[in-house]
């Protein structure tokens, strides 16, 4: 039997199976969204494909009962891990009134759900970084041991808000973890035209915090790095910057055509490292994922997603006039 890495990280077989299940769920919902988009049922998709390992590995390293996340638009793995359901996500994809993220006001991928401590996100990139720092500041002020995790793309790490947010966190030694999901592209622009440094994590030193680059296709490596960062944060040792390197397996979004700017071979090459394949293999080799379990999981998830799709498709849109609601608090 192959090396058992998860046990040495303190993860049980159930936990790693749960991680895999969450990754698979994200992938399958994502794939379904594309089908729905291509058949004209939903206007827009933006994918998590290629980043599930990072998202789920990081989330499992946090305390999902009390920590906060400020995810970005690809983070289906994060929000699923933090309690959002397939149905919630489908309601968002179909822009239906019951969508807990925004009541159908925002595009899919614009996550937010207070009960699960998922901060509401917008489209302008990187604005969530200072928000997560603000949560960490509040946590520190209240002497809680709550940690916040914020994610973004590598292109987005060039926005001023990244710099200002991380420096604020560094100066005040706040319990916030910034995870840059480096998928090598920002729409059509490759990493070397985005970022002058070798690694995004090279920027950490400029904010007086440790920085790490880890394999974003390996959920256990990401788990390990984020767990250590969360421990430091709870110990009052301040923030951490983590870069997870993987690859964006889909076009930027359903509106994009990536053949205009990258070679098919490059994509095919990256698919070989797809975490849904490699982590499955790891679990199989470790004897954790049996054929039966796999079949069962596939069936279970397919049913959940079918049900969620049906429910969302049949759910009502918000009333036109409800567009007028919630500009300001209603108690006024």
């Amino acid at each position, binding site marked *: 039997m192959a090396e058992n890495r998860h046990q040495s990280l303190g993860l049980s077989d159930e936990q790693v199976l749960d991680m895999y299940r969450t990754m698979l769920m994200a992938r399958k919902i994502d794939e379904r969204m594309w089908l729905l988009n291509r058949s004209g049922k939903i206007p827009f998709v933006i994918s998590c494909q290629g980043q599930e390992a990072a998202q789920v590995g990081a989330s499992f390293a946090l305390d999902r009962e009390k920590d906060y996340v400020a995810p970005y638009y690809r983070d289906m793995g994060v929000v699923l891990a933090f309690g959002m359901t397939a149905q919630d996500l489908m309601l968002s994809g179909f822009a239906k009134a019951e969508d807990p993220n925004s009541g159908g006001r925002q595009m899919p991928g614009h996550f937010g759900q207070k009960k699960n401590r998922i901060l509401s996100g917008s489209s302008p990139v990187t*604005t969530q970084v*200072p*928000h997560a720092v*603000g*949560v960490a500041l*509040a946590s520190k002020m209240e002497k809680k041991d709550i940690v916040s995790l914020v994610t973004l793309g590598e292109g987005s790490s060039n926005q001023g808000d990244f710099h200002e947010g991380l420096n*604020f966190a560094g100066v005040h030694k706040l319990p916030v973890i910034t995870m840059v999901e480096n998928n090598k592209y920002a729409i059509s622009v490759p990493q070397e035209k985005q970022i002058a440094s070798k690694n995004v994590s090279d920027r950490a030193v400029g904010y007086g915090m440790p920085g790490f680059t880890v394999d974003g296709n390996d959920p256990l490596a990401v788990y390990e790095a984020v767990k250590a960062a969360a421990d430091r944060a709870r110990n009052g040792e301040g923030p951490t910057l983590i870069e997870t390197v993987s690859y964006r397996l889909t076009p930027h979004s359903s509106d994009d055509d990536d053949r205009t700017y990258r070679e098919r071979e490059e994509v095919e090459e990256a698919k070989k490292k797809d975490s849904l394949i490699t982590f499955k293999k790891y679990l199989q080799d470790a004897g954790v994922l049996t054929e039966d379990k796999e079949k069962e999981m596939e069936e279970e998830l397919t049913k959940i997603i079918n049900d969620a799709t049906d429910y969302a498709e049949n759910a009502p849109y918000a009333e036109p006039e409800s567009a007028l609601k*919630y500009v*300001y*608090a209603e108690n006024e």
Partner: protein
Amino acid sequence: MPVMSYIQAVTKALQEEMQRDENVFVLGEDVGKRGGVFRATDGLYDEFGEERVIDTPLAESAIAGVGIGAAMYGKRPVAEMQFADFIMPAVNQIISEAAKMRYRSNNDWSAPMTIRAPYGGGVHGALYHSQSVESVFANQPGLKIVMPSTPYDVKGLLKAAIRDDDPVLFFEHKRAYRLIKGEVPEDDYTLPIGKADVKREGSDVTVITYGLCVNFALQAAEKLAEEGIDAHILDLRTVYPLDQEAIIEAAKKTGKVLLVTEDNKEGSIIGQVSAIIAENCLFDLDAPVQRLAGPDVPSMPYAPTMEKYFMMNPDKVEQAMRDLAEF
């Protein structure tokens, strides 16, 4: 009732709110040990400590954005922008994030944050320490913009802003800070955001304005009273969203309306006020709606000759009121 200056009313409101609610905290550049470059947060660092009166790095987008995050968590941040002119790096956080938080999350999340900033000219501050910036924001549903004219209003409105469940921009006229004094009750009162206030009842001409200019209009009105011209003065107090009802009522009251702002003319708040009047009071007007404003140049120059030329003052207001009364 104690008499205090406009800036003392700011400090008092902050202090009382921080005493009342431990979720209230202050953040900004030099607000801590230094007590603010205008000393608006004077004494708060000593009373509440550096955890609740935070000297931030020099980065306005972070000041706004970190405040938003803390507000989402449940805090009541009061951020200071050292000068209103320096709010510009924070526009994305204010417009894209704070203003849209409640709406975009379908009422799930909110960003109850106050952003204070000293604005306005007449203090030899030159182009970048003199601007009126409200019109940049006064087109963003989800925001509220308060611009008080008196110490009494400052205290009541700043407390209301801090307690408000939505983001409020609170612009304080820096020349008013020490120039304008008035009675301010010791007790805990708030004034309603979104409501204009009649500062003087009159029957001949209506002046609608806000901020420091209210004081100019009141001074002008006293002089004109001697000439038998009786001015009605409406203080907008909240410049966004506007109090339409009060504007319509004030316009109808005299049928002659002068709108005054220290800002440039085109694109300013008073253009919006005029549009409300044009839409609702056409048949009640005895004269065209007049606008008295700064010239359409980028900002107030430093040299005293040009600064004076740009800056609003009681004489300019008086002249415009007289011309309108005589129309």
